[in-house]
């Protein structure tokens, strides 16, 4: 078989789209070393950008005093680095992905925060369906959350339009109200008269163009819902329902007719409520200057509810995040919110499934209803006797509400306070969702503790390595030692995650995790950034936390910015109480919040799963998303394109080693010792990852030389399946190709009837490193092949790989680990490639899977008779 025969069979196995893409590449004949150079440069540039993001995250986390000059200095450097990454990425992928528009958009949003250059949309009024993520600030927190529920979670939200903060600015300007928001000359220390401001607002008029826009929108609403429909006109101030709830501070006008003058009146009432005395005190506490907070308004189609209520997706008092609390009453939900009557209470417990643990039916003496006679009014009436002590909700509805609430919490990644309503037809509507503030959990007595710092003078450490504090903070909870990614599904709320390596998949448990400790990892990893964004105490690179900390054990953890880490057995009251104050108070400083806001467009990671449909440039919301996209697609590009070198470079050198692996080597830079010629020996290999892999493959005893019998059925089955994969069925491959450099290996290796692919980058920078391992096929039937896949899975999980399995295809990834660990792990992968070669025929049952996994991990590679 010629190399091109082999490659064409590889291409066939990769599927039509990949084939088309590869053909395109072959046609253009790009030198592989050029592609590799771009790949390395992309990694370097990305790494620099991640370091800058890390620096910004640290400097803006409340432990540094900074000013806008710092941001003005560092952001251009970050933006330039992103531009470099994008340029290199485009060269690498030949402009295959339209990433520039995503960057340009995010860059403009950041520039708006830094330089005040307006880039947001032109609309002053828009429907909820048209609210995109980057308009969050303009539509205010409350309306933005509703738009997320509607547009992303596809939940049932009443038809809504929003008057943006731009409309508020236009209103102020048209009525020349900015002037009265300023103190009178000579009264600089005095605040303006709030009552006078409110009167001026109520006396003001909408600018004609705004009135015109509003009129059009109201016509649409009437056409959609009829002239008798009404609106709930609700405040949605800039930061409302965000870090701070502003709960109950501003006006909500219910049952407003869909008529221009009524809506304008209601909007002015909401604007004026910015200057209510309580609301002003609240704003002052958050360091707002008088008139500094801007108001958007959500005009929500008024539901005439049969039942309304509130859901807390956690118990805010006990801190128990396994409980969902639901309150319900007849009619409008106003009495639930103000606590004036005894309503129904339900407690739903989250375990493997949702279960109602408590149902307490309230007396519900009164209920609030819309006043059909007087639009704009609601009425309190005595609850009819037959309804008073009747539960408002059936168990089915309770569980349906709890399920929706869980989805919402999962989406926002933090416990939620949700308002809902049930109409006469039994449809559930969501009216509001905002973060729920939770009181710290109760704590027990002091217990002995162990402290370690990054200062080596303080040895011995609790852990093998000093550890790196990625995010400072204090936490307490039960240790959950994670062995494999799918165990995240069972992650208990409020526990401390202890894992071998970090992973962007941890974002799934961010709402519930108290702290994260990993054996390996770096401060610039994606997970590290996410932990900083969520303020989750995180320590990486401890070496052996998964072995030292006991699964299920209770600990208290404190990590500070100097790198000092304190781990205490049990819950330690004194530690928990000590340092929590700092960040909260900083966040009460308006300028701090305003300048830190920039990070929202930089640090969060939304693009987590490269296999998801959403993994596209258009879904990038932050610079971190862009870097993640570039990194993932660059690795994919290199993996696929490495085979292209077969055509562009004829200089393949045969490798002679102790086992019949049939490998030919293509060096693209520094992968071989100087002046070598075919056949090569293992000593000629200078590539760090390839050396490691070969060391494993030639490990004593790992490459079994015993003949393992295949039955006829196995053999016949394999011929049909793999005629495209490996046209020669000799069981001894001759044309396996390793593309190498000093720090890189891409090895496609067919051994008999199965196929290995190893792609690894192994540099001094942990953030750049990865191992990608793919295994597919085999000569035996699917049951036996699946057993082998299980064995490989079990072994790789032990070494911290993230694994996806589909039938007899296994894809394993490990990234962001230090060079020495990549080398060690590749040696193991080499042993595994050798060991697993005939393993499908050896594994008779599930017990064998366990047995041979154990033997491999113990270094025993012999097959039993």
């Amino acid at each position, binding site marked *: 078989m010629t190399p091109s025969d082999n490659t064409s069979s590889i291409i066939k196995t990769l599927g039509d789209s990949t084939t088309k893409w590869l053909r395109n590449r072959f046609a253009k004949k790009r030198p592989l070393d050029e592609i590799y150079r771009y790949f390395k440069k992309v990694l370097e540039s990305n790494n620099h950008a991640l370091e800058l993001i890390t620096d910004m995250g640290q400097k803006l986390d409340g432990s540094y005093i900074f000013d806008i000059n710092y941001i003005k200095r560092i952001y251009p450097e970050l933006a330039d680095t992103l531009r470099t990454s994008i340029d290199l990425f485009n060269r690498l992928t030949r402009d295959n992905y339209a990433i520039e528009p995503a960057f340009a958009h995010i860059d403009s949003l950041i520039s708006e925060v830094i330089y005040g250059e307006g880039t947001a949309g032109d609309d002053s009024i828009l429907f909820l369906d048209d609210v995109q993520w980057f308009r969050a600030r303009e539509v205010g927190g409350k309306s933005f959350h509703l738009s997320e529920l509607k547009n992303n979670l596809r939940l049932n939200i009443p038809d809504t339009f929003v008057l943006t903060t731009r409309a508020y600015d236009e209103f102020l300007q048209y009525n020349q109200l900015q002037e009265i928001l300023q103190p009178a000359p000579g009264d600089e220390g005095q605040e303006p008269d709030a009552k006078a401001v409110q009167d001026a607002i109520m006396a003001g008029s909408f600018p004609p163009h705004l009135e015109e826009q509003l009129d059009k929108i109201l016509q649409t609403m009437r056409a959609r819902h009829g002239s008798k429909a009404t609106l709930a006109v609700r405040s949605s101030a800039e930061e409302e329902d965000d870090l701070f709830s502003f709960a109950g501070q501003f006006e909500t006008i219910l049952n407003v007719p869909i008529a221009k003058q009524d809506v304008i009146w209601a909007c002015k009432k909401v604007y004026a409520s910015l200057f209510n005395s309580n609301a002003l005190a609240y704003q002052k506490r958050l360091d707002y200057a008088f008139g500094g907070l801007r108001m958007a308004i959500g005009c929500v189609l008024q539901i005439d509810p049969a039942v309304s209520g509130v859901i807390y997706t956690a118990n805010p008092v006990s801190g128990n995040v396994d409980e969902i609390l639901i309150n319900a009453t007849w009619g409008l939900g106003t009495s639930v919110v103000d606590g004036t009557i005894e309503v129904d209470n339900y407690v739903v417990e989250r375990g493997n499934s949702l279960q109602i643990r408590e149902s307490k039916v309230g007396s519900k003496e009164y209920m609030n209803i819309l006043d059909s006679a007087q639009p704009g009014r609601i009425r309190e009436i005595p609850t009819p006797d037959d309804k008073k002590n009747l539960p408002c909700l059936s168990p089915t509805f309770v569980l349906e509400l709890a399920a929706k609430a869980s989805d919402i919490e999962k989406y926002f990644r933090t416990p939620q306070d949700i308002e809902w309503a049930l109409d006469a037809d039994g449809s559930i509507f969501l009216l509001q969702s905002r973060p729920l503030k939770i009181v710290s959990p109760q704590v027990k007595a002091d217990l002995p503790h162990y402290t370690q710092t990054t200062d080596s003078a303080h040895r011995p450490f609790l852990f093998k390595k000093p550890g790196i504090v990625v995010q400072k903070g204090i936490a307490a909870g039960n240790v959950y030692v994670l062995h494999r990614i799918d165990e995240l599904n069972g992650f208990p709320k409020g526990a401390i995650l202890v894992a071998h390596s970090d992973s962007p998949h941890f974002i799934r448990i961010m709402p519930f995790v108290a702290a994260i400790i990993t054996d390996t990892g770096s401060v610039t990893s994606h997970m590290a950034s996410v932990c900083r964004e969520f303020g989750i105490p995180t320590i990486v690179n401890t070496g052996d936390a998964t072995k030292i900390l006991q699964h299920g054990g209770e600990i208290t953890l404190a990590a500070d910015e100097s790198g000092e880490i304190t781990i205490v057995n049990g819950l330690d009251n004194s530690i928990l109480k000590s340092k929590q104050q700092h960040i909260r108070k*900083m966040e009460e*400083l308006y300028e*701090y919040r305003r300048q830190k806001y920039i990070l929202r467009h930089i640090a969060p990671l939304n693009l987590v799963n490269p296999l998801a449909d959403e993994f596209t440039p258009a879904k990038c919301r932050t610079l971190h998303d862009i870097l993640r996209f570039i990194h993932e697609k660059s690795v994919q590009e290199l993996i696929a394109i490495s085979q292209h070198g077969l055509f562009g470079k004829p200089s393949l050198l045969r490798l002679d080693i102790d086992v019949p692996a049939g490998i030919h080597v293509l060096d693209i830079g520094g992968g071989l010792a100087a002046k070598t010629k075919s056949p090569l020996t293992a000593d000629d290999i200078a590539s760090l990852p390839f050396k490691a892999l070969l060391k494993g493959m030639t490990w004593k005893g790992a490459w079994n030389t015993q003949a393992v019998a295949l039955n006829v059925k196995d053999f016949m089955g394999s011929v049909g399946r793999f005629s495209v994969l490996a046209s020669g069925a000799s069981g001894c491959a001759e044309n396996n190709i390793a593309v190498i450099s000093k720090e890189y290996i891409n090895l496609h290796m067919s051994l008999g009837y199965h196929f290995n692919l190893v792609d690894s980058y192994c540099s001094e920078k942990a953030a750049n490193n990865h191992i990608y391992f793919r295994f597919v096929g085999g000569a035996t039937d699917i049951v036996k092949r699946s057993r082998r896949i299980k064995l490989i899975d079990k072994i790789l999980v032990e070494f911290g790989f993230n694994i996806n399995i589909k039938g007899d295809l296994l894809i394993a990834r490990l990234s962001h680990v230090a060079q020495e660990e990549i080398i060690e792990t590749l040696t193991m992968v080499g042993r595994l490639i050798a060991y697993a070669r005939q393993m499908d025929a050896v594994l008779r049952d599930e017990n064998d899977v366990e047995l041979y996994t154990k033997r491999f991990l113990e270094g025993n590679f012999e097959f039993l008779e």
Partner: protein
Amino acid sequence: MSKYNILIIDDEKIVCDMMKLSLEQEEGYEVESFLNGAAALERLKEKKFDMVVTDFKMKGIDGLEVLRTVKQLYPKTAVIMITAFANLDVAIEALREDVHDFFPKPIKIKDLKESIRKALP
């Protein structure tokens, strides 16, 4: 024992606010802050402070002038100088005027607190 008094001068509100919060609420000092040198010097004439933390580059009266005035009025009051960038010339000039410490922004709050603790009697 009475609380130590600290005067903060910086034309960036965020710097004054963050510093005031850190030093007042977390360390228990009494803190006054000013957004310009002129107003701060007026206050200095009325009241002696145990410590002055001043920005270097400000419109009108700059940090060096504040430093000189403080040393003239209250030779024992320590002054910490902060700047937007690490600037060697400014640092040398400030050292000549007997500055206690010198921090380029962003400033690690922990380091600033330590420096203040060392300077106070």
